């Protein structure tokens, strides 16, 4: 790995995640089918397409290199990194997102049951394997900013292969959230992540009407609030309306 375009200085060393923190995860309500919320919230996604995913490189139908586990340390960050990526805003910081963005989505609060680590791509930890302003540093900066996730998949795969060659599995990556600049986002890989490393605390159904007030509370620390969907009832015309 040393000497590669992404880590010219040394092999990055994973750093422990904060064991005391809450972690928030947005995930499907349909996977695994029929499972409890606790199982759904702690099962990696084999079809993730997000930043640094290792799930979507296999087009041949073979199993993915790893299932994906995206988490953040606040619910607001987890939401903005995922289901609110098509959100629009008004001057009063109201957030509007169409219903499909929330359909079949859950958000869960988790805690680590056992220590776990991830390679830190945020500064200053990144300097330890990619000197500042080096080509590797600039490449990481680009990968952390781009919304062309295919490029990030290749980089994750490159890192994954390099660590495997050194008999070290890639446990995960942490990086500055692209959507909430003050926070850190995490992508963890399963394996080596295992389900029993998490304690499930609570799950909310993001598409349920009753959850809107909860989402408001999740976004409140960031100063944002949700708008309800303007359809149905008085918002819709009667048949034949002119």
């Amino acid at each position, binding site marked *: 790995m040393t000497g590669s375009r992404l880590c010219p200085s040394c092999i990055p060393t994973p750093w422990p995640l904060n064991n005391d923190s809450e972690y928030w995860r*947005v*995930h*499907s309500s349909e996977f695994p089918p029929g499972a409890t919320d606790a199982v759904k919230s702690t099962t990696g*996604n084999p*079809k*993730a*397409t*997000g930043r640094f995913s290792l799930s979507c490189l296999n087009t041949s139908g073979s199993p993915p290199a790893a299932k*994906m586990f*995206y988490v953040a340390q606040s619910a607001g960050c987890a939401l*903005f*990194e*995922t289901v609110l*990526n*098509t959100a*629009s*805003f*008004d*001057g*009063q*910081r*109201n957030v*509007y997102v*169409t*219903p*499909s*963005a929330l359909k079949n989505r859950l958000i869960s609060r988790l805690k680590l049951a056992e220590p776990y680590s991830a390679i830190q791509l945020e500064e200053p930890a990144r300097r330890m394997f990619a000197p500042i302003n080096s080509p590797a540093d600039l490449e990481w900066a*680009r990968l952390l*900013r*781009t*919304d*062309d996730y295919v*490029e990030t998949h290749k980089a994750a795969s490159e890192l994954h292969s390099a660590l495997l060659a050194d008999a070290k599995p890639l446990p995960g990556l942490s990086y500055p959230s*692209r*959507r*909430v*600049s003050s926070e850190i986002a995490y992508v963890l890989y399963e394996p080596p992540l295992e389900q029993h490393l998490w304690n499930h605390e609570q799950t909310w159904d993001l598409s349920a009407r009753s959850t*809107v*007030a909860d*989402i*408001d*509370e999740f976004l*409140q620390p*960031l*100063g944002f*609030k*949700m*708008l*309800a*969907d*303007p*359809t149905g009832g*008085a*918002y*819709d*015309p009667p048949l034949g*309306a*002119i």
Partner: protein
Amino acid sequence: MGDTQLTVLHAKPGAVSASLFIDTTTVNQAAASSKEEGEGFALYMPGTSSPLLMIDRVVKALNSLVAGKYRHRYLRLQNRSLLKFSPKALQLSPINITLDSLDSPRRVAEVFRSLVSKQSECIVQTWGEVDELERLMAQLRGSNESAGRAQERGADTDLGLLTAADRTRAKVDEFLSRKWPTSADIGQRLSNSTTNPGQYAADARARRQLLGAWDSKRRTFVHPDFQFDEFGRIDPRVEKLINAFETHPDLSQDRDKGGWRRVFWLYSTRPELGEEQKMSKDGDRDGIDTTLSSTGVSPVEKFLVDAEAVIRLVQRDVERLKDDW
């Protein structure tokens, strides 16, 4: 002190809800006591299972009220039934408040300014497990400072006092106040028909050439004015935009019969359309930047100068909805 009175109600700790009633005291006392009708201003705080959260909301509301932080556009409450708390008699008596005189945002703003200038006397009363609520309030007094900091950040425009549904209703009302042309207005302008002037716009909507939004009060569609050129004719680029919406799972005409989803989408800011568009050299998809903090413009503003960029944004949203994490 004036005559203004503010009463906060709590009910049932464990499933707490609260209403904040500002009695402007011009309240017709006779009417109030006869439980018929009063006049005033009310804020309704949605129920929560957390007494702490509820009281936090109340404290923030009081702080915000005194600081004159409320924005009139959120304050739209009419014919809401409240329980008015009588601090002396410790009795709850329901009154039905009509706020016709406060229906106009300007009038609401005036009333609030007046309240703030009077430094309203605040009477906070609780009902239920008073000791527990008072203990929590004492606990929260220490958090007022942080609430103040939140206000400075501008994060408290309505402090969560209104529900998402309330905010949506207020937003729709704000759009309706723009006096967009009705179907009849368009017919009179663009059609020779005198028998059914609204039909011209209805046909244009059916052909996906015009976007309308349903006004349930006036029982007619109104039409966002960005769709018309300086002569009042329908901009031909609108048809392409509406057809792009047809590919979106939530924004097709069938999924958005009232048109309000598309109005919200079109008139809200999208950071992707902002100044950082030139970030494409950094690898952003379609030259679109998605940083939350970047300065964006609304699709409507963008449409006027670059309709294709807005159509691309619709397409991008359709793709983004397929993302999985």
